[in-house]
């Protein structure tokens, strides 16, 4: 924990120091942003602090960082939604890349389940990213707001099934040999699993991929219900495979944003470092607490941020 505190302090100092090095003058006399009383370095610093707490809340609330990042940063920071989505994808990507190796090594994330899904989702994420960058900001905000409010609905209504009942594997999953065994530490059991409704599940990932690329949200909120409830993968396998999937889906979409110039390092790096450090702290807090209430705080935050995005798009609340 001391390391985290030091890292947070170091990074905050780094951003503040950037101002001093850049201007050669004390901060009090420094240049300010056009139409803003804030010095330029204040926003990246606030971004770092906010994403740090976002990382904690995301872990406790059981959601990915990307789904919080885009509506909240897009709604309450001065950054254009193009750059927010680019940064959101890279934040979600970095989190997925960090989690991926451990989940794969433990056999929680399943490469055999992920590969066919990833081909579809990553191809469609490219299309989504291109559509998203071509749309006007107000259209993106309205659609983003609607999507976030839809996610709130999914979080409130969708049930989860620890071990879904899959009476018979479907033909496609049988041909692809998508089946496995994972070790459930809490019970000491080896859980055999198989999936069904594979064609329907794969078709759903067309929509998920497009939305992931279009809004830069990550897609865990959609991946998990489809893998778990529709296709019948056990909950832990679904969550782990979803997290790993993001490392592939968000890669393809992120490249579109990078190659079209919608990535600002001053936004991306503080966000990635902030949310990763926050996630580490969040995992430690999670081990000591039962954060049932946090999930409702996350839902309330998303409800507020989603409404804000929609009202911003409709020019009701600018």
């Amino acid at each position, binding site marked *: 924990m001391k390391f985290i505190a030091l890292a947070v302090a170091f990074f905050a100092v*780094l951003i503040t*120091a*950037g*101002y001093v*090095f*850049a*201007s050669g003058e004390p901060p009090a006399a*420094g*240049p300010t*942003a056009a139409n*803003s009383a*804030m*010095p*330029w370095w204040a926003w990246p610093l606030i971004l770092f602090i906010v994403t740090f707490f976002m990382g904690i809340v995301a872990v406790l609330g059981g959601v990915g960082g990307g789904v919080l990042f885009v509506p909240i940063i897009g709604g309450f920071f*001065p*950054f*254009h939604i*193009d*750059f927010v989505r680019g940064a959101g994808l*890279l934040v979600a*990507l*970095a989190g997925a*890349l*960090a989690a*991926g*190796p451990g989940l*794969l*090594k433990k*056999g929680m994330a399943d*490469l*055999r389940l992920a590969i066919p899904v990833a*081909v579809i989702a*990553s*191809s469609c994420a*490219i299309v989504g990213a*291109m559509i998203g*960058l*071509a749309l*006007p*900001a107000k259209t993106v905000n309205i659609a983003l707001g609607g999507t976030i409010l839809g996610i709130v609905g999914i979080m409130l209504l969708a049930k989860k099934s620890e071990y879904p009942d899959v009476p018979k594997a479907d033909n496609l999953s049988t*041909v692809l040999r998508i089946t496995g065994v994972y070790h459930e530490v809490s019970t000491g059991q*080896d859980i*055999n699993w198989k999936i069904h409704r594979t064609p329907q599940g794969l078709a759903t990932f067309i929509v998920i991929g497009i939305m992931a690329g279009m809004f830069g949200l990550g897609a865990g909120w959609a991946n998990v219900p489809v893998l778990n409830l529709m296709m019948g993968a056990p909950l832990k396998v679904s969550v782990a495979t979803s997290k790993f999937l993001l*490392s592939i889906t968000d*890669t*393809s*979409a*992120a*490249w579109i944003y*990078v*190659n*079209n*110039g*919608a*990535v*600002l*390092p*001053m936004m*991306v*790096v503080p966000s990635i470092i902030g949310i990763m450090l926050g996630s580490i702290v969040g995992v430690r807090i999670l081990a000591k607490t039962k954060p049932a209430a946090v999930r409702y705080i996350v839902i309330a935050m998303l409800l507020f941020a989603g409404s804000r995005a929609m009202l911003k798009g409709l020019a009701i609340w600018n």
Partner: protein
Amino acid sequence: MDKKVMATEEQLAYAKLLDSGMKTGLLILIVTFAVYMSAVLTPHVPLEELPNYWKMPVHKYLAAADIHPGWAWLGMVGKGDFLNFIGIAFLAGVTIPCYIRIIPILFAKKDTTYGVLAIIEVLVLALAASGILKAGGH
């Protein structure tokens, strides 16, 4: 035993490469950002002018800051801000070698379907990374 209790060979190979690639990418990202903040290398867009640009739509930002999209940043890595794109591109690209790593393993196991799917994924990601695909401005 015909089912996998442990992670498969290709899954472990993928995980190992992803682990080292992710750590290297994050390290590059932090180091290059420290260089950016220390102003050792002059940025293309002065730091104090950033607020004028980050509120613009991307196509206006590119025109106003005289930045060419795609891989043009490679010619500008001597600038503090564009130096950061080394780490960003590394993280965005690390999945491609992971897939390339497992292709021979899959074919050696005569898992042709997954070998082909892995090749398709490499092509999809390479297409995304190529810079060929341009989004229209708005």
